[in-house]
């Protein structure tokens, strides 16, 4: 029996709070009716009845039903929000929603609280002399704008870091990229960099598009599912509905590959424990058995894959004994899994951060694709690479190029790309060009070189100015919906924050950035709305675009992100250009106009057919879409796929149904069929890169072909299918740049995919590793493998910054830091957790930051379950957390969740939050301990494999 019962910090906090869940509106407060009966007033009865203080009073006012989408992950669950007199009073399960059928995880089921949160940022504030001071919006925008203009004057436009968000809706994401671009910089980023950037790079370079090929729903048709580096049960719980249906209805075999026995693994037919960071070797190990037994899909490879023979040769280097040495998985299990996947086709592969957040992230993602290509598991229902994205709109924000290496639609940064968008925007190319720094750095002009990434803005601040490929260091950072505690190297980040001239945090919550910065001045907080306080579209992981209603009016003094963009751009003097085609109501740009603008420009990935009207129609007719095929039956959307998953080719008038399954040749392009994108040329070393003997149904060419341009249309004799207007617009253009959409329309009319019909490639000759290679992590406990599988040499400049590999790996830390540290997800929280830890319904469930330690290590280190421990990282960071002794992790492996913040190396930062806005639960951020390490293609950070030492506190 415990003799004392300590209150946790969170409990104390909750007890002190002014009443959980009490709405901002007076009438919502508990009606004050005493719970009746004599007992309430009777003898000694007073005080016995606690009036439930967390309640919204039930009202008989008329109910408005709003349809919105959960903001917590990319599954895209539908929600019915019942609103009475402007207050969100009930949340009902959307049983007719085609993706979730009413289902929610802890976060989705707690959504309504966001409509009542009191822990929000309430008005603009600035830090002055160590104290938070309230500002008017006007003053805040003026001060911020003046500083930005001053820094621009002194250090050029690239010294401002525009850190946007995957929590934007599509329209805001698009405007944010455009806003950064017209400011004159490519230093525009968001969390996709540290989420699936290696996926996008690796997968797009394998077969054309870097997104999930199929859908959550389509997984019901899978016969096997390989989860590698994905803990869907905690990260995408509602997706498990489809997985478990496949298991139940389809006898689907579920294989989970993870260093940690997760809740997903608990549902697996086969759980494979691998050493963190050994994914490529694991995949090669599977392929070794597949090739050895002839289980590969030879016909598919012949028709649709380039370079499989090179892979076959590479795989020969990975016989079972080598694979066991690297991954820790024995031959018998490797064989079993390989056979399971081979015997149960179509099968798909699922990966998440466990695969992407590595220095070898792009190698991992390409290896995964190659496995699916070898098994012929691409372009079919039940097959594919089902890449679960993270945030609710990280797919959309990626598509709209809130990234330093591309304009919206993956157009890149070449002059042609800028000219294309200048055309869409109705602006002079030269005007835009003049907004940029005209100097050249290491051979590149800032307008055409990838900017600094979110993973490394810290280095952009701290790095020696001479070594950065732009005019000056970063001096101002706009954290526009970003959780800084999701980034590695916490202690250095704190230094960088201190060095900045100004920090601007635009967010519904103060975020960890507001408290960990160690500054006394020059921090601005601007309260932004959540997505429940505005409307617009959001792209789920499966590329379906869903429309959200506005549920409630903005809380406190918060403003929508697009309104803040308008106000700031006005202050910065370019709102006329930025919003040239867009109606402004008051200070708020019209969302529908933004959709129409990007509809006119996003040809590459087919964000062109999804007009606001079509999206809204889908939203109003959730019930019409099938739960497995996502296809509408009946209504005006008959035949459409839900949310018009991109590519939805051509103009809205063309009524393309969207593409549910990418690269599926069993459908005509007009019905959502495709071959692989012919994006890598037509041949290499005398071998064709175009499909051979395979094409989508109805393809009049009947074989592989390059992407469609005006010239090719003429050669094919289809030019005259264009209208006169289309001809005028299409002349000299191709499918990506023809603003009339005529080229796409005519291509599809002839059954031809506008992007060509190519082969997927297993070799990416432009990448540091043309063939994916296993390379030991920078911090590894297996020093013996470093010699054979070393990392890369250091790079002088990647995304404008010197990037280290070998010089980090050289240092042997294995004696001092013998435990592998990996990080991951808790179902109750999202990302940095600022929002979810401020939701008491969720916060109550996870009150302590912890580290999972195997009993083997715990006993050796004399650490008890629940005890406080210090976790030390090899770069000097440390965190004080609770020990959770469990067999979920292997011996010499530790796991920490990444959602916590508010404590820093033992220091409690809670009193640094503006009054009344600290989240209910705080804790150390795992990323105070995590270390250096970046993927050379995308600068993805390494969060999944580092090392640590644990000591009792």
């Amino acid at each position, binding site marked *: *029996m*415990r*003799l*004392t*019962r300590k209150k946790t910090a969170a409990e104390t906090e909750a007890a002190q709070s002014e009443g959980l869940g009490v709405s901002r509106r007076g009438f919502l407060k508990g009606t004050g009716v005493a719970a009746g*009966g*004599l*007992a309430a007033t*009777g*003898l*000694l*009865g007073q005080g*016995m009845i606690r009036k439930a203080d967390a309640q919204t009073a039930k009202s008989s006012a008329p109910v408005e039903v709003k349809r919105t989408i959960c903001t917590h992950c990319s599954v895209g669950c539908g929600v019915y929000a019942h609103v009475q007199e402007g207050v969100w009073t009930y949340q009902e399960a959307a049983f007719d929603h085609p993706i979730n059928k009413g289902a929610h995880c802890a976060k989705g089921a707690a959504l309504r609280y966001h409509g009542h949160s009191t822990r929000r940022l309430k008005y603009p504030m600035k830090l002055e002399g160590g104290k938070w001071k309230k500002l008017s919006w006007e003053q805040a925008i003026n001060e911020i704008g003046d500083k930005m203009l001053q820094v621009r004057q002194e250090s050029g436009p690239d010294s401002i870091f525009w850190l946007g968000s995957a929590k934007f809706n599509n329209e805001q994401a698009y405007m944010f990229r455009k806003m950064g671009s017209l400011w004159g910089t490519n230093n525009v980023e968001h969390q996709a960099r540290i989420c699936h950037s290696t996926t996008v790079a690796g997968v797009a370079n394998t077969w054309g598009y870097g997104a999930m090929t199929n859908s959550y729903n389509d997984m019901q048709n899978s016969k096997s599912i390989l989860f590698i580096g994905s803990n869907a049960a905690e990260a995408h719980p509602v997706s498990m509905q489809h997985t478990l249906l496949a298991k139940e209805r389809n006898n689907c075999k579920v294989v989970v590959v993870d260093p940690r026995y997760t809740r997903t693994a608990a549902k697996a037919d086969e759980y494979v424990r691998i050493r963190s960071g050994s994914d490529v070797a694991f995949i090669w190990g599977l392929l070794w058995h597949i090739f050895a037994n002839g289980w590969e899909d030879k016909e598919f490879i012949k028709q649709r894959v380039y370079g499989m023979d090179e892979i076959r040769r590479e795989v020969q280097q990975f016989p079972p004994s080598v694979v066991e040495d690297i991954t820790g998985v024995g031959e018998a299990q490797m064989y079993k899994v390989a056979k399971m996947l081979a015997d149960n086709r179509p099968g798909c592969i699922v990966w998440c951060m466990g695969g992407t957040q590595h220095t070898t992230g792009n190698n991992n993602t390409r290896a995964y694709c190659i496995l699916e290509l070898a098994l012929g598991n691409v372009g079919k229902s039940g097959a594919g690479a089902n890449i679960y994205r993270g945030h609710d709109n990280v797919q959309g924000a990626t598509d709209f190029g809130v990234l330093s290496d591309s304009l919206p639609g993956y157009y890149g940064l070449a002059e042609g790309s800028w000219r294309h968008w200048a055309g869409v925007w109705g602006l002079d190319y030269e005007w835009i060009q003049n907004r940029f720094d005209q100097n050249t750095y290491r051979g590149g002009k800032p307008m055409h070189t990838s900017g600094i990434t979110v993973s490394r803005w810290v280095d952009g601040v701290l790095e020696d100015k001479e070594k950065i490929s732009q005019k000056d260091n970063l001096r101002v950072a706009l954290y526009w919906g970003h959780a800084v505690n999701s980034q590695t190297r916490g202690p250095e980040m704190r230094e960088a924050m201190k060095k900045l001239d100004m920090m601007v945090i635009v967010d519904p919550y103060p975020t960890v950035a507001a408290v960990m910065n160690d500054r006394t001045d020059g921090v601005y907080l601007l309260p932004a709305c959540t997505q429940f306080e505005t409307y617009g579209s959001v792209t789920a992981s499966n590329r379906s675009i869903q429309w959200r209603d506005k549920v409630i009016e903005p809380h406190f003094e918060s403003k929508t992100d697009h309104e803040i963009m308008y106000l700031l751009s006005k202050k910065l003097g370019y709102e006329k250009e930025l919003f040239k085609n867009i109606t402004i109501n008051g200070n708020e740009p019209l969302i529908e106009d933004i959709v129409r603008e990007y509809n006119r420009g996003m040809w590459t990935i087919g964000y062109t057919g999804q007009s606001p009207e079509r999206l809204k129609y889908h939203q109003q007719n959730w019930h019409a879409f099938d739960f497995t095929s996502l296809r509408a039956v009946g209504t005006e959307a008959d035949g459409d796929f839900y949310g018009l998953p991109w590519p939805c080719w051509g103009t809205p008038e063309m009524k393309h149904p969207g593409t549910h399954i990418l690269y599926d040749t069993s459908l005509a392009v007009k019905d959502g069929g495709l071959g692989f994108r012919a994006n890598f040329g037509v041949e290499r070393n005398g071998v064709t890169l175009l499909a051979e003997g395979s094409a989508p149904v109805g393809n009049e060419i009947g074989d592989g072909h390059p992407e469609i341009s005006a010239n090719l249309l003429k050669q094919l004799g289809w030019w005259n299918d264009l209208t006169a207007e289309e001809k005028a617009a299409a002349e000299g253009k191709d499918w990506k740049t023809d603003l009339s959409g005529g080229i796409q329309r005519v291509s599809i009319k002839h059954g031809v995919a506008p992007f060509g019909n190519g082969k997927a490639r297993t070799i990416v000759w432009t990448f540091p590793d043309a063939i994916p290679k296993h390379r030991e992590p920078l911090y590894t406990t297996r020093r013996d493998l470093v010699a054979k599988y070393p990392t890369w040499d250091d790079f002088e400049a990647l995304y404008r910054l010197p990037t280290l590999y070998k010089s980090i790996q050289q240092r042997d830390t294995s004696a001092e830091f013998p435990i592998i540290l990996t990080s991951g997800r808790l179902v*109750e929280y999202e990302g940095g957790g600022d929002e979810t830890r401020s939701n008491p319904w969720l916060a109550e*469930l*996870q*009150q*302590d*930051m*912890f580290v999972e330690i195997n009993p083997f290590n715990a006993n050796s280190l004399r650490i008890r*379950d*629940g005890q406080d421990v210090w976790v030390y990282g090899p770069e000097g960071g440390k965190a004080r957390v*609770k020990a*959770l*002794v*469990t067999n979920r992790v292997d011996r010499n492996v530790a796991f920490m969740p990444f959602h916590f913040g508010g404590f820093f190396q033992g220091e409690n930062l809670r009193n640094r939050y503006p009054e009344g806005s600290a989240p209910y639960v705080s804790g150390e951020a795992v990323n105070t301990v995590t270390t250096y390490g970046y993927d050379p293609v995308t600068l993805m950070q390494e969060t999944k494999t580092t090392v640590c030492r644990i000591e009792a506190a």
Partner: protein
Amino acid sequence: MKYRKRNRGWFSLVALLLAGCLFSLPSVAQPQGGPPADARKELMQTLPGTTSDYWRNVQGGVTGTTSSRSPGAETLIMVQGEQWRNWRNHWVSPGGLIALGGSAAGILLFWLLVGPVKLEHPRTGRKIERWTRMDRTIHWYVASLFIILGFTGLMLLYAKWFLQPILPGGVWAAFMTAAKNIHNYLGPLFALGLLAMILKWIRHNAFNRVDLKWFAKGGGIVGKGHPQAGYLNGGEKVWFWIVTFVGLTVVISGLIADFPNFGQSRETMQITLLVHGIGALILMAASFGHIYIGTAGTEGAFEGMKTGYVDESWAKQHHDLWYHAVKDQAIDEAELEARKAGNSQTAANPTQAS
């Protein structure tokens, strides 16, 4: 984070058995309810399709991890709950009725058959101080709290069978709330009194040869002539030790139950409440005898605890040895009245001589 908690149920059965030994009642027909709930059946309906291994585990009170921080949340099925219910509802509750009823009936029968013990000789009018003001204060303090706690405790155990049907809902609720709160708030005060009483009187309560003879004569019921007794007779000493041991048990268990804010497990609370109930019922049953003997059962006894003084005749008859030691301290009734009126110093403590 999710805590893994140790299974705390290991000692429950042993403890239940111990508790049973304390007050081993005959099995009686249960006065209420049907057969006990079958947790397995309930869970089978709710969690079908599980293996037999699983059921063995679950029924063994297996614990897991959970994010709930409620006490015992990590246990899927607390098997002891059902045992506790059986003990409470099928043994303690009816057993208590039998004990209390039996005790009351026995006394009534004794009174009818034997009648009260009268003074054998007329009062002399000379009084001897038997209980000091402090003694009486402690006694009545403890006694009144005992009655209040006993009554409220009985209400918590039995009132729903006879009071609820006749009271309007609001009154019933207020009554029970009051009963519980009075019981819980006064309990610790009772504990203090009991402790003071034990400390104050313990030195008079060592058993000696005289007590053996007293017991042999059954306190005067067996054979002829009143057995010899000192300041306290054997019966009073027995009562004292019952009050001490059972009373302390009731008090300690009561305090554990009254302060659940130290993280007591459900299993601890179950045992605590059983022990408390059994002990309290024993005390109450026994107290009937004490009350009878001290009031209607013995002429002249009550005035001792009421006024502090007893008549010489009474002292001689019931506590002859003590009487001989202190008889020179006897005073006239009139003088006593005068003293009381004058509020003068109390007489030398007469009990010192015994």
